[in-house]
């Protein structure tokens, strides 16, 4: 899990570069750029694409009893920590990261979308997401009941905000690296994860387990994958100067 907990001065440097870029460019309105997908101007560099696979047993979703607000949340909540596409064995909600050695990190600037945590139907949506240090996290409550969004990183509160029904959305910067456990103390069955990196070389898998990461420098790199119950798998990959390299990883 080295890639998940490293604190890098380079990351802070990059954030500074981004800020300076805005200042120099004199952009009045940041929102279109902040909302832009992360794919801009990557046609020349190499792209790593692949699939995360799992062929093991997939238990049926757990039915958790709802202890309050059943009129909004329902009587039970169905949770599936393991979501696998039956046709392809692709694993959803895995977070993939390319671990670059210090000094290998490209200077490319990537504009991330805001990291959203939505309290909706007494669930956090999305259930798993990856984000970059310094990204804005936006928290919304779409439900007519109160929630709180309590984000814990390494036994410490990263953010714990009440989400009163009809209250303001929350906008904060992600300031901590690593695995973020997201909980609601009003509804103990509500739980989600965010994984925050100090570089932009990550993706999370789709319903069919696919991912795509671009902008990595050529060379030999390690790919590490995190999943909430399956843990971590790693693999080395040779990245060419340009073109697409395909790499699949499998949880055994």
């Amino acid at each position, binding site marked *: 899990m080295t890639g998940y907990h490293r604190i890098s001065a380079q990351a802070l440097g990059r954030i500074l570069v981004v800020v300076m870029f805005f200042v120099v460019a004199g952009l009045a309105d940041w929102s279109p750029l902040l909302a832009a997908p992360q794919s801009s101007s990557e046609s020349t560099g190499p792209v790593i694409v692949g699939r995360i696979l799992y062929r093991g047993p997939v238990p049926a979703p757990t039915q958790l009893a709802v202890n309050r607000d059943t009129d909004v949340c329902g009587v039970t909540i169905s949770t599936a920590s393991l979501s696998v596409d039956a046709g392809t064995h692709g694993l959803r909600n895995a977070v993939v990261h390319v671990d670059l050695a210090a000094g290998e990190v490209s200077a490319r600037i990537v504009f991330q979308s805001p990291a959203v945590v939505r309290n909706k139907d007494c669930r956090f949506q999305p259930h798993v997401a990856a984000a970059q240090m310094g990204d804005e996290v936006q928290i919304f409550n779409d439900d007519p009941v109160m929630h709180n969004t309590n984000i814990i990183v390494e036994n*410490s509160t990263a953010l714990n905000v009440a989400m009163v029904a009809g209250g303001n959305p929350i906008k904060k910067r992600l300031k901590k690296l690593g695995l973020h456990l997201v909980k609601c*103390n009003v509804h103990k069955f509500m739980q989600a994860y965010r994984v925050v990196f100090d570089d932009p070389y990550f993706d999370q898998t789709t319903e069919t387990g696919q991912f795509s990461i671009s902008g990595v420098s050529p060379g030999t790199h390690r790919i590490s994958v995190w999943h909430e119950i399956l843990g971590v798998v790693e693999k080395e990959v040779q990245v060419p100067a340009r073109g697409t390299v395909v790499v699949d990883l499998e949880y055994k």
Partner: protein
Amino acid sequence: MRIHALVAIGASLLMLSGASFVHAVKPEDNQATREKGKQIYEHACLLCHGVDGRGDGPAGWFLSRYEGPRPRDFRGGSYKFRSTPSGELPIDQDLFRTVTQGISGHMPPYSGLSEEERWQVIAYIKSFNQGFKGPVSIALLLPNPPGPPSAAGIDNGRTVYIKYGCQNCHGDNGYGDGKEALDGNLKDTYGHTISPGDLTERASFKGGSSAQAIYRGIMTGLDGTPMPSYADTIGGNDKDVWDLVYYILSLSQERQ
């Protein structure tokens, strides 16, 4: 009384402005100050907070082994009593207040130390956490309470109490017997079971029981615990919060 305290009192009397007394004696945060702070720490704090500030001192280890809350881990742990937004480090004045007042039922007040000694030990405590070397957190605006409370305001405070979900943990009448507490669902960030404050008992207000202290706790939340910060979600709705504060204070009125 120590000479430097007398000097400080004299100095503060001379300062006819509204400047806070504590600024008058706050020593510069340098190696010499931290060294003095270390000596104080070793006889006043180490027993609970441990040699390395991990909250695992000889007594702290025992306190935290079976049930929360455990003594603060100064290296990276969350600070409950702050005037800063959730997830942020406290400002120096927050630490000074906690050292001076103690934490009702958990940590003794250290008002027996001179103010300079308290600042010295704070400088040492801050040296355990690299975060304090970064930019200083910005405190939330914490106004003085409007007063005096009105019956209509307290009635509204009761409505706000339910709207804000206070009863989920603190119970319908504030006894700390809400459903989440009774079901044992309330854990600190270490996974230790903790209990919510009994709002009918002022000694149970760990961050202080003044109107302003309660307002501060609601707005900032108590990091490391399930108590969330309300500042952002209800931002601008100051009157409701003060009504809630006075409602909460009314719950402990008869017991005083």
